[in-house]
């Protein structure tokens, strides 16, 4: 006999399989429809052989003319811009919040060859900003999902999936393939778009672009702010010219910790697509040697000289030129492909290339408790106080019953609240002078709770213990109904 749990698992797995099949079928249908469209146009033109065989002198087929007609109608862009775009190749590193809109527009606008690098899988908490992915692809590789959407938007361009993390060992090969067999180097991508989410990747991609001489469109977003610039193009600085020394790891906030309003990376990603298109077509003035800072929160409008009024909520600032002393692109630098391959970006920035939550281990075992053990104590009626040290807005998302919220940042000023809570609990449980209520501390993942326990021990709360793994562990080991975020 199959248990209810087993049956549910079987149903869920079948739903997953069917969803996967459905998205594959959807992709196939869109590809076939596009193919059919091509055939119809060719057939129609077949009745008028003088035009279809002669061409129009610019390499654009009738289907291309129709698809990209609104580009062709732009006097500053026109046939030349579109032809350049169709001949260009662009690599987008990261199919997340920035990469999603960038890829959508780059696929739609007719970039000849579009590469996507991502090692990650689609998760439900990505969907609010990573708009290229659909629910059917949850659990599947982002590169595959993004490529599927791009193909369904434009089946006439070449889309290449790189389902791997960019590393020093594969970056040179992915960015430019060396063709040993035939003639010289076969350049894979003309323009690189950095849509990653961590400091070591940003240094690595910039250095790789310098070594290979490729322009880099770099965007970043966090919270309600975004930044954008073009590196290593038209004499513009590289990332290292601007930031020769990596920031301390504590200064590198992640969207998974600090949050991000979905539309903000969306805007920066769109601007990245725009800059890549401008470089590919040689149309307009690229944002090289300048940086765009976007503050979505501020309703204040700041107008900087020479800035267009329609862009008045953006600040466009002037940044330094290429640094002659730069260790990578400077006058006397000889940063080679081999040096690039050997460079340890994780050590340099003291943070991992693949972003994963930090797991601290600050306390001795006696000062820690597993969530399951605590649950047993609570069930037995042990006198205790549970302090939740997450920020108040986290506490509002979900909290354990009877938890007292004192954010870590204000803990040292609110110790009296803990003392009185302990006394009250002792009174409630009728505990005498010989024993006292226990003090437990919880946070989201079990890092801040350890910092809090360190502080509490220092000021005399010697019974304080931290709940290993925080609320996330509680959700796994004790109560699966606790939502994770």
């Amino acid at each position: 006999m199959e248990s209810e749990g087993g049956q549910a698992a079987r149903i869920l797995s079948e739903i997953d399989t069917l969803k996967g099949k459905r998205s594959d079928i959807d992709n196939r249908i869109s590809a076939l429809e596009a193919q059919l469209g091509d055939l119809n146009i060719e057939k129609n033109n077949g009745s008028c052989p003088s035009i279809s065989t002669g061409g129009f002198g610019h390499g654009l087929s009738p289907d291309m003319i129709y698809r990209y007609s609104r580009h062709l109608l732009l006097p500053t862009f026109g046939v030349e811009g579109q032809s350049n775009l169709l001949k260009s190749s662009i690599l987008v590193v990261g199919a997340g919040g920035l990469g999603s809109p960038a890829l959508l527009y780059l696929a739609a606008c007719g970039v000849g060859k579009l590469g996507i690098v991502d090692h990650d899988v689609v998760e439900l908490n990505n969907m609010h900003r990573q708009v290229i992915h659909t629910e059917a692809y949850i659990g599947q590789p982002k590169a595959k999902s993004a490529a599927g959407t791009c193909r369904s938007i434009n089946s006439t361009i070449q889309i290449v999936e790189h389902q791997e993390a960019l590393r020093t060992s594969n970056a040179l090969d992915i960015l430019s393939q060396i063709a040993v067999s035939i003639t010289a180097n076969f350049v894979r991508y003309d323009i690189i778009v950095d849509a990653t989410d961590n400091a070591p990747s940003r240094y690595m991609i910039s250095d790789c672009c310098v070594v290979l001489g490729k322009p880099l469109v770099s965007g970043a977003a966090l919270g309600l702010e975004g930044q954008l610039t073009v590196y290593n193009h038209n004499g513009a600085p590289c990332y290292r010219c601007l930031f020769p020394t990596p920031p301390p790891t504590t200064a590198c906030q992640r969207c998974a910790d600090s949050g991000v309003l979905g539309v903000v990376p969306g805007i920066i990603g769109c601007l990245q697509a725009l800059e890549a298109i401008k470089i590919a077509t040689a149309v307009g003035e690229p944002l090289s040697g300048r940086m765009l800072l976007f503050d979505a929160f501020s309703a204040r409008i700041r107008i900087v000289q020479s800035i267009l009024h329609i862009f008045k909520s953006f600040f466009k600032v002037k940044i330094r030129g290429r640094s002659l002393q730069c260790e990578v692109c400077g006058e006397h630098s000889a940063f080679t492909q081999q040096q690039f391959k050997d460079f340890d970006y994780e050590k340099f920035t003291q943070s991992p290339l693949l972003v994963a939550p930090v797991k601290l281990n600050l306390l001795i075992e006696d000062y820690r408790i597993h969530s399951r053990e605590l649950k047993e104590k609570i069930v037995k009626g042990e006198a205790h106080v549970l302090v939740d040290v997450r920020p108040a807005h986290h506490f509002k998302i979900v909290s354990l019953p009877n938890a007292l919220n004192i954010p870590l940042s204000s803990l040292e000023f609110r110790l009296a609240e803990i003392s009185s809570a302990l006394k009250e609990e002792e009174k409630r449980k009728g505990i005498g002078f010989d024993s006292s209520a226990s003090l437990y501390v919880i946070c989201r993942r079990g890092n801040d709770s350890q910092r809090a326990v360190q502080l509490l021990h220092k000021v005399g709360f010697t019974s304080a213990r931290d709940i290993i793994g925080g609320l996330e562990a509680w959700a796994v080991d004790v109560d699966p109904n606790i939502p994770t975020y």
Partner: protein
Amino acid sequence: MQLTLEFGGGLELLCDSVKIHNVNVSLKNEVDKLTMKDLLVWVRTNLIKERPEMFMKGDNVRPGVLVLVNDCDWELSGQLDTTLEDKDVVVFISTLHGG
């Protein structure tokens, strides 16, 4: 001397989450000129409420902070030696890595 100081990219969290500060920085005497070096010390003393190491390293800003004086990278105006004038706007922005 009236100055407008702005903090962004998360640096505002170090000064009570306030992004824009209109401040009056007094000079020791009329002859002295206020430089960015002086201003950094003034900011650390008067505006930074927590984790000063997230703003400064030694007598400079910490790595990863862009400084703009009147919308120009301070590297172009002399970095720490940049002299400030009344009503100047100084922006401190931490570079972002998220996406």
